[in-house]
Every structure is written in structure tokens, then in C-alpha cells.
């Protein structure tokens, strides 16, 4: 293979501004791309990424799921998240919590989710202006997952701020900045103090359920309990926050589609599905090779890092046809990889879809004429999560409805 100017650096801020041109080149020119500086492989075609998610024997999650947190397979980091386990250990842990997030359970939460979102919407409608992320899309999923977990209202802000910090990365730099470490420490410290209280019978909710669960005749270890708490807080809040803001931002740049949604709220689920495909919060997942393997004529070694680039796979013309790079809420993609695939398929997918549906419906019911200040919006820079740190909007002043 000759010298190429093709560079994919998931930490580069300029990459975040438009990853899709690079992704197209990866798919066409280097379907198995090697970054020598950062020492990772990247798969970008739909079929390869799907198969990569499926084959947990070849591609392990136990070496970390983000490039900057990679480590030798099985090395403990003090808390054990099932997202970083492989089957069969993963299967056992996941079974404990899968019933909490089924489509049916989530459907029963719709009214509660709606009243939580309405509460935040009521606080801004009289102002005629808002910052979407801090006013709406960040606090509301935190409230929802906190209600599931049983985190009291007065503690949620602290967890939300900590969780936001965890994702922060610096331009082009792979190491985790102090601010992000501080965020993780904030979460761990909170739950290390909280878990003994739950064990003593205080509080209620999923955390208390977890404390009482048994696997193979034993209680969950403290590392496993911490892992669940940290995972639920981060996964339950971060990607949904970004996803809902991405919906509003993308629709504002496609006025005809925005008008269509405003005129017919039954289009909301389709719009959300297309945002998940077209500009997913989670851009890639990291895996570690368990053995030597050959693909696209290149030899990879056991222990190598492989990125499954969801953002690239979801724009693959080979799967989505010649219009793959266009945003079209009427597309109804038959399948996409926004929530991954296989054993680690996003546990909270049904909840995320419901939260997105409720939030976007309510926004279009109350302030369908919102306008995004595109000059003032600020991108959120992370390695594998994409979205807005700040997304200012204006709209005609309205009356709150109460709720």
C-alpha cells in the first residue's frame, strides 16, 4: 500500500466538524485502516462493523470500549461494567437488568417522562430564548435515569455535572484530561458513599434491586455494583442529551423537513431514527483482538485495537444506497448501527427512543417555530461522543402549561 494522506484521528477537533468526508475515504480507500501514530485499526463499512459487533470471540470488549481507556484484556480498573465484559460473563450480568429496559417497561414510563420534560420546557417558554443543552436535553434524561435508579432529586445535579466532565477531551490528544478524571472520581466517590446506605436498606429503585440480586449464588461485588451505577448514569444521560439536541439542530438546517414534522407529529419517530443513523451520538466503539486475524488482505495481531466506526458504517452507500450521505427523515432505514449490534446492543435503546420521541414531540407542540443561532452554537469535543455543548435557540414567547 502506497503512502496516503488519509488520516483519521478521532481526537482531532477539526475531524469532529466534519467526520463524514474522512469516513467516506476510509470506506472506499482503506476499509481496514491503520493509524500508526495512535496504534489502532478502524473498520468503517457497514457489513464489517456489524460483523465486528457480532463476533465477540474475536473482538473483545474487556480491553476497554474507548480508545483512550484501552488496557490489556481483563485488567481491572476498580469497577466492573458489563459493557466491558464478554459473553458468558456479560450475559449473566445483563440478564439481571434487561427486564428494566424492555419496550413494555419503557412504554409504562411515557407519562412520567413527558411530565419531566414538560417541567423543563415550562421554565423556558416565557423567555423566548433558551440554551437547549443546559436548559432541556441535559437535565431531563438525568432525571429519568435517576428516577429509575432511585437517585434523590438533590443529588442529580452533582452526578450530571460529573458525568458531563467524563467525556471531555483535548484537541488531538488521546490521554484523559484532569477534568475528565475529576468527573469520574465524582461519580465513583458518590456511589462508594451511597452503596453502603442502600445495603442498609435506605432508598429505593434499581440500585436497591441490584444490591439484593444474586449471580451464581453470590451477591454482586462492590466493583460490579459500582460498574452498574457508573454505567447507568453515563449511558443513561450522555448520549440522549446529545441525541435530542442533534435532532433540533439537524431539523433547523433542513427547514422543509422541520415544517413537515411541525405539521405532523407522527413523523417524530422517523426523524429520530434518521438522526440516529445520520449523526449518531456515539461515533465508534473500541474492541481488542483476541487472536491474530486477517481482513482486507492485512494481518492484525492479537492485542491490537480495533475501532468499529458506527458513524462511518451508517453512511455506507453499500447499505443505504446512493443517498446514504443525505439527511432524510422519510428514509425509514431498515436497520442501522447507532445502538451497536449483538450482545452489547444498547440496553437503553428503547428508553432513548422514548425519551427522544417525547422531547421532540413536546418541543414541536410548544415551540415549533424555534430557530437555532448557528453562529453561537458550540460543539462538544470528545473522542467517541458527538453533539453540542451549547445550542442557543429563540422562539416567540409562550405561556407555560404547568404539569
Amino acid at each position: 500500500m502506497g503512502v496516503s494522506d488519509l488520516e483519521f484521528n478521532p481526537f482531532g477537533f477539526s475531524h469532529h466538524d466534519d467526520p463524514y468526508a474522512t469516513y467516506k475515504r476510509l470506506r472506499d480507500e482503506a476499509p481496514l485502516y491503520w493509524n500508526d501514530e495512535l496504534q489502532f485499526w478502524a473498520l468503517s463499512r457497514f457489513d464489517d462493523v456489524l460483523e465486528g459487533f457480532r463476533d465477540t470471540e474475536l473482538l473483545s470488549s474487556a480491553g476497554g470500549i474507548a480508545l483512550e481507556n484501552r488496557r490489556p484484556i481483563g485488567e481491572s480498573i476498580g469497577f466492573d461494567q458489563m459493557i466491558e465484559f464478554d459473553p458468558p460473563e456479560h450475559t449473566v450480568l445483563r440478564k439481571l437488568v434487561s427486564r428494566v429496559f424492555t419496550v413494555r417497561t419503557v412504554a409504562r414510563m411515557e407519562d412520567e417522562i413527558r411530565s419531566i420534560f414538560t417541567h423543563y420546557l415550562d421554565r423556558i417558554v416565557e423567555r423566548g430564548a433558551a440554551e437547549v443543552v443546559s436548559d432541556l436535553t441535559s437535565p431531563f434524561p438525568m432525571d429519568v435515569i435517576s428516577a429509575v435508579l432511585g437517585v434523590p432529586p438533590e443529588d442529580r445535579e452533582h452526578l450530571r455535572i460529573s458525568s458531563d466532565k467524563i467525556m471531555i477531551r483535548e484537541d488531538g490528544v488521546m490521554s484523559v484530561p484532569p477534568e475528565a478524571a475529576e468527573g469520574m472520581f465524582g461519580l465513583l466517590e458518590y456511589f462508594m458513599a451511597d452503596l453502603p446506605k442502600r445495603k442498609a436498606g435506605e432508598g429505593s429503585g434499581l440500585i436497591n434491586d441490584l444490591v439484593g440480586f444474586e449471580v451464581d449464588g453470590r451477591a454482586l461485588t462492590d466493583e460490579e455494583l459500582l460498574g452498574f451505577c457508573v454505567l447507568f448514569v453515563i449511558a443513561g444521560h450522555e448520549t440522549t442529551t446529545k441525541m435530542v439536541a442533534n435532532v433540533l439542530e439537524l431539523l433547523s438546517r433542513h427547514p422543509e423537513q422541520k415544517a413537515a414534522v411541525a405539521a405532523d407529529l407522527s413523523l417524530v419517530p422517523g426523524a429520530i431514527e434518521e438522526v440516529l443513523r445520520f449523526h449518531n451520538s456515539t461515533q465508534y466503539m473500541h474492541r481488542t483482538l483476541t487472536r491474530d486475524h486477517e481482513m482486507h488482505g492485512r494481518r492484525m495481531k492479537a492485542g491490537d485495537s480495533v475501532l468499529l466506526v458506527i458513524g462511518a458504517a451508517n453512511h455506507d452507500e453499500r447499505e443505504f444506497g446512493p443517498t446514504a450521505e443525505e439527511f432524510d427523515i422519510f428514509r425509514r432505514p431498515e436497520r442501522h448501527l447507532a445502538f451497536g449490534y449483538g450482545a452489547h446492543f444498547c440496553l437503553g435503546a428503547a428508553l432513548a427512543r422514548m425519551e427522544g420521541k417525547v422531547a421532540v414531540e413536546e418541543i414541536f407542540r410548544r415551540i415549533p417555530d424555534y430557530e437555532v443561532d448557528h453562529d453561537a452554537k458550540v460543539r462538544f469535543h470528545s473522542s467517541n461522543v458527538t453533539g453540542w455543548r451549547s445550542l442557543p435557540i429563540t422562539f416567540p414567547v409562550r405561556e407555560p402549561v404547568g404539569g
Partner: protein
Amino acid sequence: MKIKYDRDACQGHNRCYMLAPELFDTDDEGYAILLVDGDVPAELEEKAQLAADNCPEFAIEIIES
């Protein structure tokens, strides 16, 4: 067209139930329950294919007759 559903492979992702509720129900733990016995009605064949394509565990197989 017939549907073959592998209960052991199912991990309760609920995709089939979301995409084809006419063909799949779920139990309390989220595992799928196949609602049709025998041939899939012609008007639901597309949905059956959609469910099969979307199952993250490849637990649903379409058998063309």
C-alpha cells in the same frame, strides 16, 4: 414464508416486537414470543423480513416456501 425463532439466541432486545408487533410479542423479561404458527400472512412478509434483519442476535430466520 415461515419464521423460525431461536429462543436460546434471543437476548430480549425487543427489536422484533417494536418493528413487527403483529408477529412478535414479548414476555415480562423481554424475550420474544412468536405469534404466528405456520405461514406468515402475505401482507406481513415485509415486516417479518424487517424483524429478521434487525435482530441483533440473528435469532429470527426467514424460511421462504
